[in-house]
Structure formats: C-alpha cells, structure tokens
C-alpha cells in the first residue's frame, strides 16, 4: 500500500511538530518515514496510518529528529563558509585583486596619516554599524520570503545570519575599538592593515555578495529548491 498525497502532507506537518523547521530536512525525513510506513504495512496491513507512523518514528530514538537537525545545521554552516572562502579567493585574482590592493593601500595610508587609535576605532565602528544595518535589512527580507513561500531552507538561514559573523568578529571589535596603544613598527602596522582588509572583504562577501546571489545559491545547494519553485 502506498501513501497518498494527503498522508504525505500529514508527514510534513508531523516533522514540523517535531521541531524540523527547514523544508530540505523535512523532505528527506518525510520520504524516510513514508518508505518505512509502507514497509511496515507490508507485514502489518491492519495498522492505521498514525499507528504505523508512530512505530516508524520510535526508531529515531528518544531525541527524535533533533540529532539529525543539529548535525545538518552544522554541515550546512560548514558549506556556507566554504562558499565564503570560494568568493574570498576571487579577490586575489584579476580583476578583483585591483580592488583588494587599492583597499590595502588606502587603509595603510589612513593608519599612517591620522592618529591610529581613533582611525582603528572609527573604521571598526563603521564596519560594525554596516553589519548591524545589513542584518536588520536581511531579517526583513527573510520574513518577506517566508511569508511568500511558507518554506525555510537551512542555507538561507546561514546567509541571512551572515553565518554568525558578529560572533566571530566579536574579539576583533573589542580589541580594535578598545585598544589604547599606537603601533610603532611598520611590520605591526602592515599586519593590522592586512587584518582590516580581510575583515572588510569578509563583511562585503557575507553581508552583500552572498545575499544578492541567494536564489542561485539555493538552486545549486538545495536540489529540492528547484522542485518547489518549479524552475
């Protein structure tokens, strides 16, 4: 006996009730449960849909779908940073490298020309404010997308959260805004310049480039995406 469309929809609802928010994870679990329910019915055809479903769900153990969701989130976080790395590498190839070199020179000149302490603090503050403004904007965009499609995707979450960038940059901001000493040696100043260049590039990639390519990324990384958007 095969499951009908209504029962498949029931299974999607069932995964949502068990804290699986994202459509890509739901889809895989729905197919798994459906296969197992059909298998159970082969041996025990008298069981109702709900009984067979619960029997199948028990096999996932006491944590239910939680472990799977956690691991999937971790795996996609990794994938997200791989995407960032791919774009980052492009900034060291022509023509983007011209932008990278210009940025480095401008920053170095700024650090040399103005009082360092204030320059570090002001540039860091600008970066921080940019991230916050983008995060607010992207959260709005995310809500809008969800209200239109009623589906969430794990990678979409990472993109709109900028892969928890603020958490990673926390130490950088603390040091750069609160630091009190000037960097005497040219070497140290160069190190600081490269660090700032890297941070600015990463912010540009995570807060601007990746969100602008979200459709493309989801199509490539979530094969289910093409099915539901009928592309």
């Amino acid at each position: 006996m095969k499951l009908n469309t209504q029962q498949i929809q029931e299974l999607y609802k069932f995964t949502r009730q068990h804290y699986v928010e994202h459509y890509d994870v739901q889809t895989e679990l729905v197919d798994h449960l459906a296969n197992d329910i059909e298998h159970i019915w082969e041996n025990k055809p008298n069981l109702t849909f709900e009984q067979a479903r619960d029997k199948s769900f028990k096999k996932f153990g006491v944590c239910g779908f939680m472990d799977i969701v956690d691991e999937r989130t971790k795996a996609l976080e990794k994938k997200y940073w791989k995407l960032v790395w791919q774009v980052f590498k492009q900034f060291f190839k022509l023509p983007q490298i011209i932008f990278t070199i210009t940025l480095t020179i401008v920053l170095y000149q700024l650090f040399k020309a103005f009082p360092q302490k204030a320059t570090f603090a002001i540039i860091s503050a600008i970066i921080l404010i940019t991230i916050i403004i983008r995060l607010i904007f992207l959260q709005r965009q995310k809500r809008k997308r969800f209200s239109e499609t009623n589906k969430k995707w794990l990678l979409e979450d990472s993109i709109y959260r900028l892969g928890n960038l603020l958490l990673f940059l926390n130490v950088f901001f603390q040091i750069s805004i609160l630091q009190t000493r000037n960097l005497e040696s040219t070497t140290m100043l160069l190190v600081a310049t490269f660090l700032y260049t890297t941070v600015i590039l990463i912010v540009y990639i995570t807060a601007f480039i990746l969100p602008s390519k979200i459709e493309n990324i989801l199509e490539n990384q979530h094969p289910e995406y093409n099915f539901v958007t009928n592309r």
Partner: protein
Amino acid sequence: MENQKLYKGSLQTIILKLLEENDKMYGYEITQRTKEITNGELNITEGALYPALHKLEAEGTLEVEVVSIGNRMRKYYKLTEQGTKETANRLAEMKEFLKTMQHIVNPKLSLE
C-alpha cells in the same frame, strides 16, 4: 546490542562502500540494504545514518540529486570524484585495520 558499538566507527566506510557498488542510493535504501547484506546483524539507526550522510555531503565526498517519486521527493546520494578516491583510501585503511585486529584476536592464524 553491544556489537553495534563496534560498527559505529565504520559507518562512513560502510556507506561509501555501498555507494561505490550502487551508483546512487537514498537513506532508507541504505538502511535496508545493510540489513539485507548482513542478515540483520547490522542495523544502521536513522539517528546515525543521516548525520553521517550530511557530513560526507558537506565535505564534498557525496553529492545529492532529488527525484520526484509520485507524490513525494526523494533525495539520492552518490559519490563525487573526490568521494571515489576517498572510498578507495578508506577501504584500504579498513583492510589494514581488519588485518591488525586479526593479529590480535587470532594470533595463531596470522602466523600462517
């Protein structure tokens, strides 16, 4: 079952080996096929299988393909080029491991 613990560390290798033999497979199929091959001795749990699959996918060892099966979607996993090489390495490691275990468990036999 206590011996399930022994299999746990080899889960990824088992998945890779199965995928090497069967072009593409979906999660449920992997659990069933393993049961079938091992006469029910090895039972891959759902809670262990999917995290392993997702990890291998994130590493670039596996790639996925979604196919519409009637009223639902099915996610198939298959080896990438990198995955095929990885499988060969893992299987070689596994053979070494089995050989070493053989020396420990059955020293007489290994002298031959």
